């Protein structure tokens, strides 16, 4: 019985950081960061540029090891096991120029041992569902910045991991495209319930996409405040001018000061 409770608690927590620190040479990038993310939850990490947000994602993903503190993904602390549970969408889309959009999205499936034909067959429906149906065969150089980010997101999604780590996914886009993609990503994430950690420096983006916002301090990064986001359903345009949205926004901006 005790065991059962233990396991259910364990599986309910997707990502757990306790006092995690990371230093690069003389620079302390992260200072005793604490964070708990439940399975299926979407958490935005919000903070100024260079506050160690990307470092945090690299640590969680198992690409790097913390210098202090404890870190677990799905109960596993080993870097290799963390890596097996996380998919990272980097700031730059990093699409491979020699692969079509569809084949870029298929990368993880092929790495997992599927034949290219089988991987394509599995990726195809998602392409259509998420509005990329006509772009399957396009080469990355033929796609706009917004389309490239969509393909990069699909690539992350198709890795089939429980935890999606999105590192400023729309940071390099113009504001109109970014607004459109925020709505798109909201729908896509609603469809695919996964645990999401989203790094951003855009307060609106954090509120639109996350259930909870963790506000980070300037370097060395610490979690300053956590704000639960509980907005009524609605389109992006309706939400951004609604009273609860503006109130949360105010709350976060205050924490950032």
């Amino acid at each position, binding site marked *: 019985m005790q065991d059962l409770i233990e396991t259910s608690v364990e599986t309910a927590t997707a990502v757990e950081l306790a006092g995690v620190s990371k230093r690069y040479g003389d620079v302390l990038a992260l200072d005793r960061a604490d964070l708990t993310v439940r399975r299926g939850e979407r958490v935005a990490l919000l903070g100024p540029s260079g506050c160690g947000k990307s470092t945090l994602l*690299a640590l969680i*993903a198992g*690409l790097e090891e913390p210098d202090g503190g404890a870190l677990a993904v799905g109960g596993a602390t080993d870097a290799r096991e963390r*890596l*097996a549970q*996380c*998919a*990272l969408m*980097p700031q*730059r889309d*990093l699409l*491979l*120029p*020699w*692969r079509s959009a569809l084949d870029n999205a298929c*990368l*993880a499936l*092929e*790495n*997992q041992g599927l034949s290219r034909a089988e991987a394509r067959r599995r990726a195809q429906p998602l392409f259509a569902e998420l509005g990329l149906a006509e772009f399957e065969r396009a*080469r990355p*150089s*033929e796609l706009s910045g917004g389309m490239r980010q969509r393909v990069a997101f699909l*690539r992350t999604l198709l*890795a089939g*991991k429980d935890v999606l*780590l999105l590192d400023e996914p729309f940071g390099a886009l113009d504001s109109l495209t970014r607004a459109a993609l925020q709505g798109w990503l909201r729908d896509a994430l609603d469809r695919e319930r996964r645990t999401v950690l989203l790094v951003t420096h855009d307060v609106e983006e954090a509120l639109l996409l996350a259930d909870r916002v963790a506000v980070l301090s300037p370097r060395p990064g610490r979690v300053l405040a956590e704000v639960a986001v509980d907005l009524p359903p609605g389109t992006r345009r309706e939400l951004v001018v609604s009273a609860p949205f503006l109130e949360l926004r105010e709350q976060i901006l205050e924490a950032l000061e």
Partner: protein
Amino acid sequence: MRWASHVRRAAPTLVLLAAVVGLWEVVVQAANTPAWLWPSPAAVARSLADDDGLLARNAWVTAREMLLGFALAAAVGMLLAALLHFSAAVRRAVYPILVASQTVPVVVLAPILVVAFGYGLLPKLAIVALVCFFPVVVGMSDGLRSADRQYRRLMLTLDAGALDLFRRVELPASLPALFSGLRIAAAYAAIGAVFGEWAGSGSGLGYVMQQAAPALATPRIFASVVLLTAMALALFGAVTLVERLAVPWSRDAAA
């Protein structure tokens, strides 16, 4: 439309070439230089036409040496580059030797190889491959390391093993640099073949030149050089063409 643009791009070269050949003809005619001393373009052209059988037969011998040697160098070079890429220890051991091997003058090496392998095709292949394989190894080796570190990290989170990373990222990323190496190698192939033939052979354009010199058949030497240049250019062009087909994305990036 596409042909027109090709012609327009080649036009300056063709005009310059025509001007040089024209001037050469005029000067030789005016100075009344004997053909054995410095033949006019017309004399070279006459040799090309008169000696067509001899030249064609020997050009084919040289072309075969060039092609086979180049193919050998490409295969060995690519394999070696991949090996160096996968093992840091092998890289540290082999790379300095590789560089050192290039300081040995091929002119000196050629007679030794002839002694070892005889008058046949083999020593020529070895010499052509020897001069060609270095740019291939260096080009592909650099190319394999050219992929951004970010791609490595990305591939790791996408469940890639070392072999997946090699096949899907590093190898395609290495192609532009590899083809640069192959183009240089293509240009070297003709030199290698002629060196090999000079060191000892009974056929090939190098042999024709060697035989023509004491006979003062200078126009034939020039005709051989013309053919050799054409063959080297053709190989270079073929490599460029294959590159366009194999690496279509490199032109996207440039555009």
